[in-house]
């Protein structure tokens, strides 16, 4: 590498902190590849320019990922997009479903955008830094941004937004994310263009919590008080034209938008109650884009020549929990046996038409960079399963109920599981409820989900494994359907969350993965890909694993 380049590098390395320098060393040593370096760097708040320079010192053997070459779309036209109908009121604070956040994302924006590679891109925040402990995070807010109603956006609005979200009385849907991380009133506007977060505990991944991954965290005017679905107020590229509940929204360009104007003239978003109908919609040319489709509902699209499918990994998955405190799963050998009986290959290749990663019975999806790849993948092994059952005194098999809900491929998964375990004489009785009945009150004792002996639950994508490690598995986890109580595990998770540098995170991850493989309170059969369909003449659609669909750059060839 040239001296001049080396000088730049040193110059930067002198200004950045310890953690950042470790990262650079790892890169130079080739312990992480360039992509991961960029991702981590973005989290730590290194500016993209300096990241670019530093990335230059990556070990030569690292292959560079080049973005797919598609010629830019022509301006103008109306882009028609199909999404799953929002399940509930369009209130940014309350939204909890994919349809809702997809709509939210059209006209409102986040401080930070977490793209499909989980790399953070500055949006309303220009840059961010943290103190050495990782407790205090400071964000520089972009200048010259105004809401669609004309009022300029400042750090005041940012502070108001996050204090609102972290206020238990408001009962926002983001509370579960901020729980134990950010408390009400700890977000301050230092000056009109600087916002500061003081966390309850150190958190290396905090920027994800103010990014699109924490989808409720769109920046709203400080005086916002409900009624969003009348105005669709926000700082985004699109401006509301008309909204018909249960039917759809149409947008025009936002004349006050601070960034590049949208490629397409207008955007029409159509809600589909049934994924089946959505599939028919794009095939019948009723829409140009389906923001997100599942293999179960959209299999037709995968093979259809008129539709281009773009896919990327996500941490969306299914959890098959087994009550660790109750027969027949009290004995961990039984749980292991169950996991060994799962034919994951068949699931991935058949049920998910290969659009999926293998799950290894822990929340550490391949997509997370902290995931410890060295842990061996659990494979189908009927013989061992039978031995384990024998040893656990269940050689003759047993029978219990498998509970799940009518949601995408879950009923199918349930049937496959039922079928897979039957070889060991295990008889699962299926009970398939509608979502409302399945989750019930979501409180222990009054929720089929949390009380069932065995059940399959759908978990959406998360940018970081943190929540997935605590809520469903830690002793006090509110979603701990497996009733898994393991102090050692809780400890490991605490370490992992606190760990700031990747090495430490990987180390902790490894231990957690091993422990979960041994205990197997929950089976993670697969982490499926995020699939987006668009008609051939459409390009520039960007989606995130969270379910956001950015149409600002979308247009027709």
């Amino acid at each position: 590498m040239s001296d001049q380049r080396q000088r730049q590098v040193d110059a930067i390395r002198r200004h950045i902190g310890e953690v950042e320098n470790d990262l650079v060393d790892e890169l130079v040593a080739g312990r992480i590849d360039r992509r991961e370096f960029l991702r981590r760097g973005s989290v730590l708040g290194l500016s993209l320019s300096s990241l670019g320079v530093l990335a230059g010192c990556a070990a030569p053997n690292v292959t560079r990922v080049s973005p797919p070459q598609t010629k830019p779309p022509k301006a103008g036209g109306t882009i028609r997009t199909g999404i799953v109908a929002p399940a509930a009121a369009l209130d940014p604070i309350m939204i909890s479903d994919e349809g809702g956040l997809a709509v939210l994302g059209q006209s409102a924006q986040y401080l930070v955008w977490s793209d499909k590679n989980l790399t953070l891109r500055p949006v309303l925040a220009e840059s961010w830094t943290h103190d050495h402990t990782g407790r205090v995070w400071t964000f520089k807010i972009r200048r010259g941004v105004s809401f669609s109603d004309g009022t300029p956006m400042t750090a005041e609005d940012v502070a108001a937004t996050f204090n609102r979200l972290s206020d238990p009385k408001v009962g926002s849907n983001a509370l579960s994310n901020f729980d134990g991380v950010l408390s009400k009133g700890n977000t301050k506007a230092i000056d009109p263009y600087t916002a500061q977060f003081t966390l309850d505990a150190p958190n290396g991944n905090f920027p994800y919590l103010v990014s699109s991954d924490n989808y409720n965290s769109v920046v709203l005017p400080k005086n916002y008080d409900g009624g969003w679905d009348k105005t669709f107020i926000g700082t985004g590229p699109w401006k509301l034209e008309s909204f018909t509940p249960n039917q759809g929204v149409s947008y025009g360009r936002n004349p006050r938008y601070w960034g590049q104007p949208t490629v397409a003239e207008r955007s029409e978003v159509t809600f589909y109650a049934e994924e089946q109908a959505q599939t028919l919609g794009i095939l019948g040319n009723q829409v140009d884009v389906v923001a997100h489709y599942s293999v179960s509902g959209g299999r037709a699209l995968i093979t259809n020549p008129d539709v281009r499918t773009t896919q990327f990994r996500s941490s969306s998955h299914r959890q098959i929990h087994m009550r660790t405190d109750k027969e027949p799963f009290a004995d961990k050998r039984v749980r292991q046996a169950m996991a060994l009986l799962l034919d994951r290959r068949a699931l991935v290749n058949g049920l998910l038409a290969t659009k999926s990663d293998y799950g290894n019975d822990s929340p550490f999806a391949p997509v997370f960079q902290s995931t410890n790849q060295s842990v061996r993948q659990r494979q189908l092994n009927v013989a061992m399963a039978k031995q384990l059952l024998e040893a656990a005194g269940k050689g003759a098999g047993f029978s219990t109920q498998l509970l799940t809900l009518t949601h995408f491929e879950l009923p199918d998964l349930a049937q496959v599981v039922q079928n897979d375990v039957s070889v060991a004489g295990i008889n699962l009785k299926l009970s398939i409820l509608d979502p409302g009945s399945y989750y019930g009150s979501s409180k222990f004792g009054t929720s089929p989900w949390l009380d069932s002996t065995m059940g399959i639950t759908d978990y959406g994508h998360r940018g970081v494994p943190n929540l997935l490690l605590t809520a469903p598995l830690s002793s006090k986890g509110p979603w701990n359907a497996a009733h898994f109580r393991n102090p050692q595990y809780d400890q490991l998770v605490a370490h992992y969350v606190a760990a700031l540098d990747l090495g430490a995170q990987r180390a902790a991850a490894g231990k957690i993965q091993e422990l979960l493989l041994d205990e197997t309170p929950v089976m993670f059969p697969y982490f499926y890909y995020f699939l987006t369909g668009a008609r051939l003449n459409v390009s520039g659609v960007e989606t995130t694993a969270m379910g956001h669909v950015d149409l600002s750059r979308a247009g027709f060839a």
Partner: protein
Amino acid sequence: MSSFGEPIGSSVTAADSPAVAEPTVGPGPDEAKVIRREHLALLLRSKTFIAGALILGFWIVCAIFGNLIAPDDPLRTNPVAALQAPSSAHLFGTDTLGRDVLSRVLVGARDILIVAPLATLLATAMGTLLGLVTGYFRGFVDDSLGRLIDAILAVPVVIVGLLSMVALGPSTVTVIFVIAVVFTPVIARTVRAAVLSEVQYEYVAAARLRNERAPYILFGEILPNVMGPVLVEFTVRLGYAIFTIATLSFLGFGIQPPAPDWGLQIYQHYGLISGGYWWPVLFPALAIASLVIGVNLLSDGISQAFER
């Protein structure tokens, strides 16, 4: 009142008035058998009846011996072999979980052929009871029950089904219950009409004139005379029951997986036809259609025979 008025007089020449003439049968107890035999003969001569019986018969056989006939285990999933087009290996192809569609269609007859008749039977029983009571005791009972029936009828069948299924949780038992509840009023109406015309007959008055109690008059005297309409109604309702059950399954509130129910199969796969995967949808659809048509042919044949 009017019906107790002056001689109707028509009976004088009833025997040879040109509306289809009936013989005045002379004495001879065995005549009853003769009539019954003639009815039967008529049934067996009616093509619709035969056709219906054959179709229904076929499905009944499938329902009973399905697992023996079926080339494959209708429940054995094999995701890797999902959605294979019809071939010599799988005549009707395979579904999303790689199960043999033919086998599922054959065995699928079972659930519906158990649930539908049971439900219809229950509905017919309750409906007949209701119809008898409302038709015989007019006044308050009739009015109030009538209103209630109206109220129920005012809500579309599917919605009532939907609500009850959500409320009671989907299960075969619930399906039976729901269908029964939904059909009872309809049947009650028909029976009530029949009863209204029966109570005009003086044998009812005659019964009261020997101090018979209402229950005996209802079930002992009137019921046997309205069995004809009831039977026809039953067969017709059976068709609608299949319809409704299938619809409920299609909405995901009927018979539950992994049961190879036809409506369920369509529900699980209809989104796929657009992708050219028509076989997991078409064959169950045809199955439903054929069964329904079979039942209708049958009921049509029966009502024909009894009208003659």
